[in-house]
């Protein structure tokens, strides 16, 4: 991969987005070129588009262990999250106004919950342990008679921690509370079955598993009471009106089919790369900690905090060396705040500032990791040389 300046790019940010697979593009192309019919039209080319969408829906349903009629396509993962949380809240406000979530959700959930608080709903933000795990018992204890929704992410986008979703689902089912999970980071990386796991709603987005951007989906268990997201035509069973993004939906279908068919092989490869990086970083670089659970984490996720340095400088210097990485969440402007996830797992402000997220994908190679492991220790070393905090630490040590 190269950038506009013909510099070679080492891409280690697959949790942000992934390169689209060639097979996915091939599958989409006919719907971008010739097959332009509106899926709602009765004539042949309209029907062809409709058929393509329904085939994609079948593939999604198969991947999740759901029924096709329970799958609703959206414009993004964020849209699916918004729909799930607001849709349940508004449809069930007569029953109650209490929602349970975690303190490490993606902003698509957290900011939606904040909005609902301004609308009179009450939200419990469950804490997490030092590895970022939500306790199922804490979920149980937080449930009140007026609780209408539990929304806990499947896997965390920053530190990769995989939550005990099946256990939480079981509790939610017992208590008769709807359970939504934001599975944007999980699909294609974790085995998911909405039946076995007692999941009532699940959101995801195609571009996180080598599909196109601008398309996602929400699984809504049959019988769940939820308000429609967009009012208009009869698309998506009139719950999310809009002429469908046919090519995008077709791409999503192909991508999820490939992702779930190859999931074990994919995970084996990513875990190997991830574990190599984790081992080597912890070995070669002093004053570093791994964030998130060592084992209950996404196969491609490594997240480190380097003491005495700022993540911002680190990312910029890596970028100058052609390495694309991230520190978790970026704000509107693109500048970096200490992450709410790292603060929630108990990291002090200054260490939360010095974090680095590397997320690997099927396109990565050991040769690329060689380069990473050559460059990263150098940059960390250089930044520490210039760091007043490190200098103070060294001085303090000598005095002892």
């Amino acid at each position, binding site marked *: 991969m190269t950038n*506009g*300046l013909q510099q070679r790019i080492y891409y280690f940010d697959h949790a942000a987005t992934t390169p689209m697979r060639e097979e996915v593009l091939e599958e989409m192309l006919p719907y971008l070129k010739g097959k332009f019919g509106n899926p709602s039209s009765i004539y042949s080319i309209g029907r062809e588009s409709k058929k393509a969408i329904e085939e994609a829906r079948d593939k999604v349903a198969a991947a999740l262990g759901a029924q096709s009629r329970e799958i609703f396509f959206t414009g993004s993962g964020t849209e699916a999250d918004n729909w799930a949380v607001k849709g349940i809240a508004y449809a069930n406000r007569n029953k109650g106004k209490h929602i349970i979530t975690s303190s490490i959700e993606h902003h698509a959930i957290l900011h939606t919950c904040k909005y609902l608080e301004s609308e009179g709903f009450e939200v419990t933000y469950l804490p997490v342990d030092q590895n970022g795990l939500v306790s199922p018992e804490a979920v149980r204890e937080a449930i009140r008679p007026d609780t209408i929704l539990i929304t806990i992410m499947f896997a965390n986008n920053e530190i990769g921690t995989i939550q005990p979703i099946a256990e939480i689902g079981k509790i939610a089912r017992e208590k008769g509370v709807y359970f939504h999970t934001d599975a944007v980071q999980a699909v294609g990386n974790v085995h998911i079955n909405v039946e076995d796991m007692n999941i009532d709603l699940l959101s995801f987005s195609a571009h996180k598993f080598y599909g196109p951007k601008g398309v996602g989906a929400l699984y809504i268990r049959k019988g769940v009471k939820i308000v429609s997201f967009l009012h208009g035509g009869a698309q998506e069973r009139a719950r999310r009106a809009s002429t469908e993004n046919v090519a995008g939906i077709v791409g999503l279908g192909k991508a999820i089919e490939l992702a779930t068919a190859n999931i074990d092989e994919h995970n084996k490869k990513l875990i190997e790369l991830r574990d190599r990086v984790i081992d080597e970083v912890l070995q070669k670089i002093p004053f570093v900690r791994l964030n998130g659970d060592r084992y209950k984490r996404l196969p491609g996720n490594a997240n480190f905090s380097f003491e005495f340095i700022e993540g*911002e*400088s680190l990312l*910029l*210097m890596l*970028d*100058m060396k052609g390495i694309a990485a991230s520190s978790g969440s970026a*704000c*509107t*402007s*693109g*500048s*970096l*705040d200490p992450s709410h996830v790292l603060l929630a797992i108990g990291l002090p402000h200054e260490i939360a500032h010095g974090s680095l997220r590397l997320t690997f994908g099927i396109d990565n190679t050991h040769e690329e990791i060689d380069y990473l492991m050559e460059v990263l220790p150098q940059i960390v070393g*250089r*930044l520490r040389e*210039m*760091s007043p905090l490190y200098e103070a630490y060294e001085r303090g040590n000598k005095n002892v």
Partner: protein
Amino acid sequence: MNGKKVMVGMSGGVDSSVAAALLLKKGYEVIGVTLQIWMDMGEERKAVEGGCCSLSAVDDARRVAAKLGIPYYVLNFKDIFEEKVINYFKDEYLKGRTPNPCIACNRYVKFGAMLNKARAMGIDYVATGHYARIEYCEERGRYLLRKSATDRKDQTYALYNLTQEQMARTLMPVGDYTKEQIREIAREIGLTVATKPDSQEICFVEDNDYAKFITENTDAPIVPGDFVDTKGNVLGRHKGIIFYTVGQRKGLGIALGKPMYVVAIDVRNNRVVLGDGEEVYSDNLIANDVNFISIDKLEGEMRVKAKIRYNAKEADAVISPMDNGMVKVVFDSPQRAITPGQSVVFYDGDIVVGGGVIVK
């Protein structure tokens, strides 16, 4: 390529955009940045639109950087900006002084934190779109700060705190040109920002209502007190000292039969001292926190032109060192509204000698 890297602070405006373009032309490897300094606490506290570091500045600067084909980053300087600029700004007003936040921002943020960040990243220089010139003088063995080619646009007043080390690592390429030339260059290279108006207000204060900003952002009580004359006679009640600045006539809220001006703010007694047209003039001041640029140290008396606020005219004066490290400034003729908290900057022709903060 000259092999040197430079980090350019970009606001999306014409000056910093052209600065980046000029440095590219000179062969530098240019990295564009915008400093994020505003707080994300709700919509209201975002920097005023058009400020050098507002959210719209980010969009504009990003577009310019893409056009120039240079890397561009937004750097998070919220904490240091809050500590060194916003808190200082509030504290000064609460102490009855009138601060200049741009001077603090240049000193601690742009040529402090940004320069340190550039150094840590192995970048040789920082550059800005300031109208000022930095030159090395062989004869004196020092870097000199000179006024820009156009006196009218000159921004050296807000830069007098630059140290020799900072100047060795700072480039100000637009200082050699007039504003008209800069606009022309912007047009030639097809930058669409060429017609953006200049911004001059305090970037974090909306509608220029600094008193409202302080009231809303401090826990300190704003207590009404007495207006008094220079003899101590009570003339009326004031709303709280933060609402007043030396030299102010409008908005005092009392009628005294003749024009009266704020001549001093007495924090200890929470009083605002008013005087007539003559009492607002003074021919001397004392400055502390002094930095010299063209000289290493002030050894004895020196004749200079001194400027007591950003838009004040320079006035003939003699400066001399005091025992406690402060500097005494005696003007040839009395100056209107010498204001504690503002800076006084000394010039020798177009060369900045140095400056300090007015104590009294």
